[in-house]
């Protein structure tokens, strides 16, 4: 299997696709292109994954500049999966845009370029071994996705886009500061090399890192990428951006943009743990994770806009994942499992809310009522995805949260456990009320909406099926993949 070639291909394909979109004559051509590209990307990602899970355990390309181990390959698969689903959904969504936001060819081109460009940038983040390049890719995603939010410029979308742009740029700048500090900490004892920023070198045992600088580095990285990952209290851009972006974009945002940022943090966590021991990094992660869960729980109680509700759910689940990463190997396992579950589930939720929003002409929850009667397919998807989001069995999020509890009790983190349970109880109570009012009851005023096309049912079935299957049964290869990914984060003796 030509893994390293497929790395290059996986990077080149969306890039060329983006350029190709510039010259396409019709909007539906663009949509077809992105669907095709992201489908192929998924295959490439699976190929890479298979290679990584082989005996060697990692794949490199361009002499170590690209380095993919189990951890990153898992994220790559989730990324491409979310992109494939969202692209497919985009092809449904944008053909039904309301009249005032008509999807003209120029907008379509812009969307295509930015969409595929964003995918390239995120892949770059996940694949590059060099922390500097990783940072470059991250900044690039910020800049590219900014205009996806205000695809149709309006007062609200511009406001959201400006906040996203400024806050995330500041954050990313800090992240670069952190990267520099990390590099400085490695060279502070002599050895300067071109590979100073290579993660493989940083994480290797023989790199004698300077603890002080690593401490500073991690703080900067955590605040920097944490802003992008939407950890409380630096999540303030997130609900605005998610609520204003078109549904597929929101899905991609909370389906994967946030995880990418979290991925970067975890890349740094390993060297930090080696330099400073477990407690420093884990302590910070626990604080941020718990805080995010609590804040999100509070805000979910009084949300009015469906997409904002989902956005705060993202904050909550990012907090849960962060918490998991702080709770040892089992915790990392749970966190990775949760990453997949949350991405798929949240994408499905955004799809449903997006389509229903088109039908009801608003995302305000009090205007969306009786979704099951108004639109059975998306009503059911909303029902399933929201039930799964609040952790109802037999959906997979219940399972990953159970694993998290195991990790928490195993680590004896009783306070965290209590706060987590209390917060998720609050989330359950309030989100369930929102869900019932949206899904059940007599349907309020809505237009009949166009036909969803051939792709709609497969999307829903794929996503919901994944949620249910992983909820009751975990395939052995998948289990091994997760364990080896979690093992990457463990500190080498």
């Amino acid at each position, binding site marked *: 299997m030509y893994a390293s070639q497929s790395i290059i291909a996986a990077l080149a394909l969306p890039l060329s696709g983006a350029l190709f979109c510039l010259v396409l004559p019709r909007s539906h051509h663009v949509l077809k292109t992105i669907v095709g590209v992201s489908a192929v990307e998924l295959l490439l990602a699976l190929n890479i994954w298979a290679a990584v899970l082989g005996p060697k355990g990692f794949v490199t390309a361009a002499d170590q500049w690209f380095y993919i181990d189990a951890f990153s390959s898992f994220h790559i698969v989730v990324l491409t999966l979310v992109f494939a689903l969202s692209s497919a959904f985009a092809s449904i969504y944008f053909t039904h845009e309301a009249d005032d936001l008509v999807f003209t060819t120029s907008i379509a081109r812009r969307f295509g370029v930015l969409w595929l460009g964003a995918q390239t940038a995120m892949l770059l983040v996940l694949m590059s071994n060099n922390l500097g390049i990783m940072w470059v890719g991250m900044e690039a995603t910020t800049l590219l996705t900014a205009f996806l939010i205000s695809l149709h410029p309006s007062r609200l979308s511009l406001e959201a886009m400006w906040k996203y742009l400024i806050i995330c740029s500041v954050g990313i700048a800090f992240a670069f500061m952190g990267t520099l500090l990390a590099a400085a900490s490695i060279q502070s004892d002599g050895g300067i090399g071109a590979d100073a920023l290579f993660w493989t070198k940083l994480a290797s045992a023989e790199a004698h890192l300077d603890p002080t600088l690593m401490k500073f580095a991690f703080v900067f990285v955590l605040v920097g990428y944490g802003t992008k990952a939407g950890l409380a209290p630096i999540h303030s851009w997130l609900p605005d951006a998610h609520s204003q972006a078109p549904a597929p974009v929101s899905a991609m945002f909370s389906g994967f943009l946030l995880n990418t940022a979290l991925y970067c943090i975890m890349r740094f966590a390993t060297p930090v743990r080696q330099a400073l021991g477990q407690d420093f990094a884990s302590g910070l992660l626990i604080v941020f994770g718990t805080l995010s869960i609590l804040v999100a729980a509070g805000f979910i109680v009084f949300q009015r806009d469906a997409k904002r509700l989902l956005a705060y759910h993202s904050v909550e689940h990012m907090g849960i994942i962060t918490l998991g990463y702080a709770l040892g190997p089992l915790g990392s396992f749970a966190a990775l499992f949760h990453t997949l579950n949350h991405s798929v589930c949240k994408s499905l939720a955004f799809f449903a809310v997006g389509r229903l929003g088109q039908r009801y002409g608003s995302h305000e929850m009090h205007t969306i009522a009786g979704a099951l009667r108004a639109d059975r397919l998306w009503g059911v998807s909303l029902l399933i995805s929201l039930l799964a989001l609040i952790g109802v069995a037999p959906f997979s999020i219940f399972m990953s949260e*159970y694993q998290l509890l*195991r990790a928490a009790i195993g680590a004896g983190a009783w306070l965290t456990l209590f706060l987590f349970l209390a917060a998720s109880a609050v989330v359950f109570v309030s989100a369930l009320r929102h869900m019932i009012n949206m899904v059940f*009851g007599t349907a309020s005023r809505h237009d009949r909406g166009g036909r969803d096309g051939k792709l709609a049912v497969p999307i829903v079935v794929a996503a919901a099926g994944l949620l249910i299957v992983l909820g009751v049964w975990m395939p052995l290869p998948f*289990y091994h993949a997760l364990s080896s990914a979690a093992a990457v984060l463990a500190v080498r003796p």
Partner: protein
Amino acid sequence: MLEFTAAILLLAFGGMLAIVLYPRAGLCQLAGQTGAVLGSASGLVAALHVLVTGDAISLSSIWHMPGGSLQLEIDALSAFFLLPVFGLSIVTGLYGRSYFAGHRDIASAASWFHLNMLTATMALVIAARDGLLFLLAWETMALSPFFLVIFDDRKAAVRHAAWTYLVAAHLGTAFLLVLFVLLGTIAASSDFAAYGAALKDHQALRSSVFLLALIGFGVKAGIVPAHVWLPEAHPVAPSHASALMSGAMIKVGIYGLVRVLTLLGTPEPWWGWLLIGVGASSGVLGVLFALAQHDLKRLLAYHSVENIGIILLGIGIGVLGLAKGMPLLAVIGFASGFLHVLNHSIFKGLLFLGAGAVGRAAHSLELEELGGLLKRMPWTGTFFLIGAAAIVGLPPLNGFVSEFLLLYAGFLAVLQPAAAVAVAGLIVIVILGLIGGLAAACFAKAFGIVFLGSPRSAEASEAREVARPMRASMAVLALLCIAIGLGAPLAVASLAGVVAQVTGATVATASAQLAIVTRPLALAVSVFVFLIAVAALAWALRARRLAVASVRRGPVWGCGYLFPSPKMQYTASSFAQPLTTQFHLLIQNREAFVPPQGYFPAASSYASDSGDPALHLLFVPTFRWFDRVVTRLNVIQHGHIHVYILYVAATLIALLIWESL
């Protein structure tokens, strides 16, 4: 085990088929019903086989889920609790199809699916021997009723009821999550057997484990004050669903509690005291709340709370007996609890099915709109009467048998020299007496107002007897009530296996100790036979007299008033008014009374509305307060980008300073 697996598969398959076939209403109903009846029958066979032969059957297989393994076992305890689950499921399956006659929407198809899933998941919970499997089945079991409750989702009240139900169920599960994860951690395995072994080494944890279990399972069982979801959820679900939920599902909560008790080894005395206290409060408050209701199914739902209380009294006495080393007391206490589990599932199922029939025929469950149905629906009326007499605990029906056992245990305790035990016994006796009296009052009201007198509404006066299958399923349960009542000694003796497992005694000892009760029971039954004979004699006598004497019909005595109307009958509210006012402190019944005034009084009225204090004094205010507090949070997200940047900067600087210090 084959029968059990077949049962699960049949139930699931029938349910899915019902959904797939929903455009063809007839076929869909048929599929759902067949799945329910065949599956449950096959499961019942498995359970009975275990109970008869007495040796457990088990199935263990590899399950790729970290922290879990596929461990199923049906021992005596599981088999016993499977009886109400599968038994009721057969009956409700029989009943449901004609209940849904005329429904051709997907809602009824889906309700078949969820009904069968409920049965299947209950069975899985009872058979699971692995923590994770148990939790998974438990959570899924909590989900299906949600859809059954929200069956008629166009009504806002129904949606609220569904919300209340699922919130209660899930919050209860939170405690169970902690419980099982904790056990799994100390045992380093998720196998129940390993739990038991690990708890021997962690004596300190036992009490907290017990408390977690009591809360977690108690919410499902509906102990006060966590009972608030029952009266919301049961009335709005389709009646056979309510029957299954109230008859079987809340018993699964009891099962979980008992199962954990078996893992915990010799209990502490105060556990028994706590159980007796919880049981007493649930029993008395449940029946008092029921008295204040004027919706038939709400009333029945509150009686479920009461009966859970009685069951807990029995288990509490049993636990006390174990803790104090009094095996006879333990055996009889647990026996009474278990028998009442079975009995309650029978007569409560019967009553809910009867209520469903009434609702079907008279298009209302509001007591004040019903009346005179015994003339119009003689079969349903008779069956309901039998159920009512049974739940009140009147001889010679099954309710009396389990209450006899419980009182017997109470008297045994009273005779003990140890003051603590004696007082516990006295409390049980008096509380049960009070519950019995109040229950009699409540069902005199329920049956009298609904089935006797003359109809209070046009619908009620046009009510007709319901379809045969519905009558048949009620008849089955009614006959069971009588059978267990007159076959009491046999029924009690057959409890030996399950009681032995819980008390840790051998089956031989358990049955020997049960024999101590079966002899008196046999004599009691003979007294009842005598009673029936006397009754027959007296009936014959008066019949012979009346054959020769004149018999005519005339108006009832109206105190000289010549133009009585159905509206002048005694109402449910006024029937219960003396008791509700007397216990006003506990049940917070809200009354509106406009007394008649002057010599020629104009309009005067009395209306009472049942307010559940647990809801109005505890939960609603708490939730409101929380909402109010939390809503203040939105000041931190007020849209000024400068402040957002300030958050980022502040976080950074705070962290930098914190680590530089």
